[in-house]
């Protein structure tokens, strides 16, 4: 078992080296710059994929004339900039044009909307100690990648691709679970989809809520735990589909989820919970004083870790998966492509597990924190 694993690894490494060597031998010097460009292109593509977008694009390509063609549909942009500004994202033309509303001009730069002048000028501040310079909003001749635009950023409440996806998942979940609930009115035996979903609901109740929160108090937390479990799972799974809308790799989304966990923990915490934070029983007084800020900080760190864990796992999974798929375009030979396909396939399977696992961990830890908040005094 171990031997075969090592031998497989060895074969994989040999394939990798062979792929590199043959790629360099075949196409020589010229490819080196080309491969570099390709790598940058892949990196940009991955970065782009991980970002939210103001359009719902299924795919895009570049014509021979160098024109970008997009296949998808525009989404509404809602801005708060001294009043509500609403327009369709098609006016921004994927960052290639400036949208004009009520005498204000807006342009897209790196998937964020900035207020610009009529020409769409983006100003860059010397944030990294470089000299201030101006750049075309359309990203041509873009050299400085890390620089931050100094243009005013209006509050962006746009219905972005991710918001659309959240809405779709919410609607799907509501319809599915509503229909499941309706079937229970006729008979208490699960039917149809309920046969698959009921064990999951029971899993959340019997394996997550009851052991962590306790037999008597778990009921008030069930709605949140079930919703967050199915929401994170479904949205992670759908993020793996070719539609590829990543929602949980947005820190804003995981922040919102973790914040709800934090608020529920804080507002349902009983006397015992707060006593353990501010005046830890069973330790000497100086320790109590030292422990209080640590414990208080801990209440923030717990949901913070929830936020980072979900965000990082999903982001990392997607980056690795897409990088491996990207290898296919770098290798361009008969060894590298099947290898990267196999790796991508195996990793996709792993990501399916991660999708469920992260949902489980998020729910589990939330339940654990709730359990701490309502734990009774044992001393």
């Amino acid at each position, binding site marked *: 078992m171990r031997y075969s694993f090592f031998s497989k690894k060895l074969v994989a490494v040999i394939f990798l080296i062979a792929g590199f060597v043959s790629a360099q031998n075949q196409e020589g010097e010229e490819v080196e710059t080309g491969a570099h460009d390709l790598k940058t292109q892949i990196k940009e593509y991955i970065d782009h994929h991980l970002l939210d977008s103001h359009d719902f694009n299924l795919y895009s390509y570049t014509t021979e004339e160098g024109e970008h063609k997009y296949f998808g549909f525009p989404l509404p942009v809602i801005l708060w900039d001294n009043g509500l500004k609403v327009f369709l994202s098609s006016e921004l033309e994927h960052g290639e044009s400036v949208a004009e509303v009520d005498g204000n001009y807006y342009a897209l730069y790196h998937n964020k909307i900035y207020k610009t002048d009529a020409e769409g000028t983006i100003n860059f501040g010397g944030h990294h100690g470089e000299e201030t310079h101006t750049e075309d909003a359309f990203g041509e001749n873009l050299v400085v990648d890390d620089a931050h635009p100094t243009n005013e950023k209006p509050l962006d*409440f746009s219905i972005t691709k991710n918001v659309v996806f959240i809405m779709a998942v919410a609607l799907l979940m509501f319809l599915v679970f*509503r229909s499941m609930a309706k079937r229970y009115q006729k008979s208490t035996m699960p039917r149809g989809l309920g046969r698959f979903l009921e064990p999951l609901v029971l899993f959340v109740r019997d394996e997550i809520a009851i052991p962590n929160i306790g037999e008597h108090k778990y009921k008030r937390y069930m*709605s949140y735990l079930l919703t967050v479990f199915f929401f994170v799972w479904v949205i992670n799974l759908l993020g793996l589909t070719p539609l590829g809308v990543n929602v949980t790799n947005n820190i804003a989304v995981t*922040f*919102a989820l973790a914040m709800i966990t934090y608020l529920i923990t804080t507002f349902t915490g009983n006397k015992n919970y707060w006593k353990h934070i501010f005046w830890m029983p069973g330790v000497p007084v100086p320790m109590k004083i030292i422990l209080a800020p640590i414990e208080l900080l801990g209440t923030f760190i717990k949901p913070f870790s929830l936020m980072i864990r979900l965000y990082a796992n999903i982001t990392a999974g997607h980056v690795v998966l897409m990088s491996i798929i990207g290898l296919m375009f770098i290798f361009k030979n008969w060894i590298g492509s099947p290898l990267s396909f196999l790796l991508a396939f195996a990793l996709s399977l792993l990501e399916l597990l991660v999708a469920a696992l992260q949902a489980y961990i998020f729910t589990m830890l939330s339940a654990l924190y709730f359990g701490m908040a309502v734990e009774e005094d044992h001393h």
Partner: protein
Amino acid sequence: MEKLIEEFSFGLFFWQLLLFVGLLLLLRKYAWKPILGAVEKREEGIKGALEAAEAAKKEMQNVTADSERLLQEARAERDTLLKEARDIKANIISEAKEQAQAEGDKMIKQAQATIESEKKAAVAEIKAQVANLSVEIAEKVIKQELSDKGKQQKLVEDMLGDIKLN
């Protein structure tokens, strides 16, 4: 970290919070409560049914034990009844025997007594008859004897002689 803050989209946060809380409230009302309620009801039903089955089983065992006990009791009853009957029979027989014995004895005694009294009466009658006969005979004899003067004289003399002897 800086990249994370840069990436943070307030709009997405706002929508996520709004949609998630909305979904949470809707699902709580229209899905989780009915589903969990139904599941709990069913679990309770199953629990109740199991308990009822257990109780019925116990009841059944009790009934079996009861009938067994009743049968046992009936058997014992029958046995005692039979025994009693046998005893009674024996008693009756022995009593009857005794009674018969006693009655027999009594009858025999009565018969004996009767016989005795009859005997006595008969003896008494015989005695009386004999006495009468003797008196008659004696009368006749005396009449005969005393028909002659000498004989009478002699008798008197004999009698006197006897008295003298005394």
